[in-house]
């Protein structure tokens, strides 16, 4: 028999727990953008902020709102040092597409769940690449090479499993399921 466990959050902590998804996304941005290269810059850092966005977009869209996604993307833009607004646009568009197909993505499990996240990460990286290529076209400079963004996509998907472990642990301990999900 399956039993449903649900964390009971006191009312006075509900406001605090409501910002946990955003704080997780910002923490992912900060950790991924620490300018320390352990492997000598061989591989680009993963988009750690995408895992909390994807997870809570499916599980608690009332907490991971478009405005929160915008804030996380803005932080990624500031700390990553790339062209301004690129990751904000990429995260928000990814959020929009995942939210539209929420029922399909939320029903995935196991390897299919990883593939679902890989699809979301592909959308984010594609949007970022296309935006930078468009800016390069307007500036008359070189188009960015594909290899670095593909490397970032691969690293992001590779880090999905450990990131989701942390995020789901925080979700069960601090946030809890929304009333409509139970």
């Amino acid at each position, binding site marked *: 028999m399956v039993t449903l466990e649900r964390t009971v959050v006191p009312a006075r902590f509900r406001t605090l727990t409501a910002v946990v998804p955003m704080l997780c996304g910002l923490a992912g941005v900060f950790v991924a953008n620490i300018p320390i290269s*352990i492997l000598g810059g061989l591989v680009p850092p993963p988009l750690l902020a995408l895992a909390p966005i994807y997870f809570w977009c499916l599980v608690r869209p009332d907490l991971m709102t*478009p405005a929160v996604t915008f804030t996380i993307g803005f932080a990624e833009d500031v700390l990553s040092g790339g062209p301004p607004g690129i990751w904000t646009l990429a995260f928000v568009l990814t959020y929009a597409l995942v939210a539209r197909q929420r029922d399909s993505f939320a029903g995935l499990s196991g390897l299919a769940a990883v593939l679902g996240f890989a699809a979301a990460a592909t959308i984010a990286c594609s949007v970022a690449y296309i935006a930078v290529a468009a800016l390069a076209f307007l500036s008359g400079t070189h188009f960015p090479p594909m290899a670095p963004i593909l490397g970032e996509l691969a690293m992001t998907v590779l880090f999905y499993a450990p990131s989701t472990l942390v995020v789901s642990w925080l979700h069960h301990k601090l946030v809890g399921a929304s009333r409509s999900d139970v």
Partner: protein
Amino acid sequence: MANAWKIARRSNVQLPLILVVALAVVLVLLGKAQGTLFDKMRAHATDTMAPVLEKVRVPVAGFGRWMGSITEIFSVYQENLRLKDENARLRQWRNVAIVLQGRVGRYQALLHAVPEPELNRVLARVIGRANRPFLQTMILDAGRNNHVLPGQAVMDARGMIGRIYLTGNRTSWVILLTDLNSRIPVTIASSSGKAGNIQAMMTGDNRVQPSLELVSRTVILHAGDQVTSSGDGGLLPAGLPIGTVVADGSDGWRVALLADAASSQDVEVLNFSKPPEAPPASAQLPAEAAGLKPQAPPPAPATTVTPTPPATPAAKPPVTATPKPQSTQVPPPAEAEAVDR
């Protein structure tokens, strides 16, 4: 119930989602038009993180050296032989350089040449590196407080690494020569000696070796030609060593950089904003050293006071040929010949 939730969600979330997407597009366009706001935020964030980065840098650098030593341990013997061979060749070049340096010094004394503008150098330590898909950068622990300004060249012991493009109070960001947005005017010294110096634009494309865009299509490059900064545009000093020309295998040319941005720990920031030193007095000008004495300007009439036009080069007094004794600083020919040998 689920259907009701979806309807409610659409009505509450979809509308701000459209607005947020539009806002993100506006942010991209705003960043393209006015990027200084982002730069200030980045500089402030880096200044705030600088103490943490300096603390983290030491163990991470040690870990990086340890990781590198694992791969290098298998090639120590071959590397030792290569270094011995290179050391022998460099000793020969050192002797040649000493002789040439003395010769250049004598020629400068003979010509009373105006000295090159003196460059201020700021020694800085690399406290961070970022290898992002759209940006390759490093962060230095010197900023505006150390008189580091955007546009200044960054060198390591081997050659040029990049340019400062963002400065905080205590930190600065370097755009590497390999970065997508890096464009440096360079001079290529032809190894054949026939073509002379070739002007080109070195552009980064996030690959290890930046590409070369030749100004003239008729010149022929050779692998191994030396690439230095040309100084065109006045942003960088001329003659900074950058690398050597290599073929990229597809009818194009790239530059194998001398500097290794991935392993450099201490770098120099060259302050080229200082104006060139004032030329020496007229008595030391090359024209006078060659025996041409400038004529004294005619005395101005003291009877009437009229507004004078601004000074122009054409208003300078003409130079007339007047014999002048040779300077005592010129070494005797016998001594010069001995040094030349």
